[in-house]
């Protein structure tokens, strides 16, 4: 058994540069993460927080406009950023695999299911066609596709959404990778199918000893599936640690707000709590903490100086001045600009308390 983390990311940054260098978008900014073998790490954030870019960065499958500008990614001890493109190709699909969000778009409409499932094996391991197709049938069975013999010769459009996503999962585990990255795999599935799919993922994880990075915006799924959690905002990790710790005692106001915004039956409040304001424009971030404009606990220092990632314990970090002993415990009377509540029939001028 290998000691040490399976994947260790240190200060990773990926920037998008538009034509002629006019706009620089810091999609991933100084991100550090760690995942051990067999663990499940959840990455949570709004659209535009950089989660998907992070996933693509790990596998170095970025569009031409994006560039990795710094950091280290140690996978089983090797720095992925130092690998050549050809070496990286042998990592993709074979040692680290990825599942995308839209299963219909992920499968090539002109090729059979069998062909697409068998493909990674034939390319990475040189498996002859017949053997690969047999393996494909077994894989389909292990992801609970009924009658795999017939399915193997069918085309993607003949399957339902749930089945397609399992097939994509089968493709992912075809070469027995150590790490599987799932980018919002259940977002486009019906609710009833979601639970089944999540169970399937957990089963596969246990059976193959897979580590799983689960990217989602749904905290409910995180609660169910994940051991560790990283919360991203504006390209940075604002809080990370064991799921139970974070859920019980969030440090960063954004995490707190996310947790509060999950509607609960027991709530006596009449309105859904929402987070004020809009997600930031990544090309024009304010100085200081990126969340400060929307933060109800923000104070002077937050607007001027961006907080570093502060260690709060074993594998527990937060990027917030509240986590230090410096700041006053009550906000200074420099006003948090009151925003009118966007919900109708709401008389209050401040947002959620």
């Amino acid at each position, binding site marked *: 058994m290998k000691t040490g983390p399976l994947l260790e990311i240190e*200060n990773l940054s990926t920037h998008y540069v538009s034509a*002629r*260098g*006019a*706009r*620089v978008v*810091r999609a991933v*900014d*100084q991100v550090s993460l760690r995942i051990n073998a067999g663990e499940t790490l959840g990455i949570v954030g709004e659209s535009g927080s950089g989660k998907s870019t992070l996933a693509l960065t790990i596998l170095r499958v970025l569009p031409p406009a994006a560039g990795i500008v710094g950091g280290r990614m140690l996978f089983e001890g090797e720095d992925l950023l130092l690998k050549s493109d050809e070496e990286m190709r042998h990592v993709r699909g074979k040692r680290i695999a990825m599942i995308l969000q839209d299963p219909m778009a992920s499968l090539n409409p002109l090729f059979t299911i069998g062909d697409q499932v068998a493909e990674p094996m034939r390319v990475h391991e040189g498996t002859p066609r017949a053997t690969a197709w047999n393996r494909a049938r077994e894989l389909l069975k292990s992801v609970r596709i009924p009658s795999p013999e017939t399915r193997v010769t069918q085309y993607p459009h003949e399957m339902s959404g749930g089945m397609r996503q399992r097939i994509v999962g089968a493709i992912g585990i075809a070469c027995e990778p150590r790490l599987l990255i799932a980018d919002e795999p259940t977002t486009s599935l019906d609710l009833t199918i979601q639970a089944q799919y999540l169970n399937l993922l957990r089963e596969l994880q246990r059976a193959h000893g897979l580590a799983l990075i689960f990217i989602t915006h749904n905290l409910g799924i995180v609660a169910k599936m994940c051991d560790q959690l990283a919360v991203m905002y504006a390209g940075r990790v604002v809080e990370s640690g064991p799921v139970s710790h974070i859920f019980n005692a969030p440090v960063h106001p954004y995490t707190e707000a996310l947790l509060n915004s999950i509607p609960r039956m027991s709530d006596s409040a009449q309105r859904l709590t929402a987070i004020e304001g809009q997600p930031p424009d990544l*090309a*024009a*971030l*304010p*100085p200081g903490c990126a969340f400060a404009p929307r933060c109800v606990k923000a104070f002077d220092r937050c607007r001027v*100086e*961006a907080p*570093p*990632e*502060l260690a709060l314990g074993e594998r527990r970090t937060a990027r917030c001045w509240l986590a230090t002993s410096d700041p006053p415990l009550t906000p200074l009377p420099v006003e948090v600009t009151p925003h009118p509540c966007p919900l109708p029939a709401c008389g209050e001028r401040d947002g959620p308390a």
Partner: protein
Amino acid sequence: MTITSPVETTVPSGYFPFSSRFDFVRLSDFPLIPVLILSTIALVAIFANVLAPHNPEIGSLTARFKPPFWQAGGSTKYLLGTDQLGRDVLSRLIFGARVSMVVGFTAVIFAGAVGTTLGIISGYLGGWVDQVIMRLTDTWLALPALTFAIFLAAIVGPSMWNIVLIFGITYWTRYARVTRGEVLSLKEREFVRLAIVAGCSKFTIMLRHILPNILNTAIVLGSLELGVVIIAEATLSFLGIGVPPPQPAWGLMLADGKQSLMVGRWWLSVLPGCCIMLMVLSANILGDWLRVKLDPQLRQL
């Protein structure tokens, strides 16, 4: 751990201080040469009477087949040579610009008007009107445009305005198709809904709300069609069913020049061809630029 510094963003330079629609126009992208060429051709066409050194329609039989002035046998009196009837090539080229310009622009505007109107009506009114117009468009598209234009020209006889009319009838379909698509999506927008709620008649809405928003697309399409129409006009002239002689047209000059090609009188064919090429090339480049600037959705056209 490092403390992040304020994110730098640079402000792009070279913007025109125009209204929002032209904010994105950058000086470096502007297709200067094509616009210059087209403007020159337009000016030449307008001032042909003044610019042409000789009468393009009457030639001097003693001065037949003179080559351009830089070749042996040429003279500066006839800068680009003369044709089989002793007519000055340069003058004919200059007057030919008139035909190309007039036919080109008028036909495009005419076809555009017809097509856009049908597109707006079809897209906005929907229902069976839409179905009928779309079926008509589809079947019309299936007919070979050039062949049809040739057919019509053969029937009605050659004359400049007939040609314009014919092109208008033949080339409207693309406008209709694309405009209809645009209208379909425009229909769902807020300002249309507001207009309906305010009680505007369908006709008013189509005219005052939808049409201005369609104009961008129509202009782009028009610039792309211009090249097509110019070549079509040249083709018709080449085949002898375009603008009738003695009025000079570039296509006609090409046809006349073909016979002399074998004996090496290259200037009779190559020069008019160059003019056509320059004009169409400029129109195409301009059209491409317009397409990218005015409506990014049309990039796939």
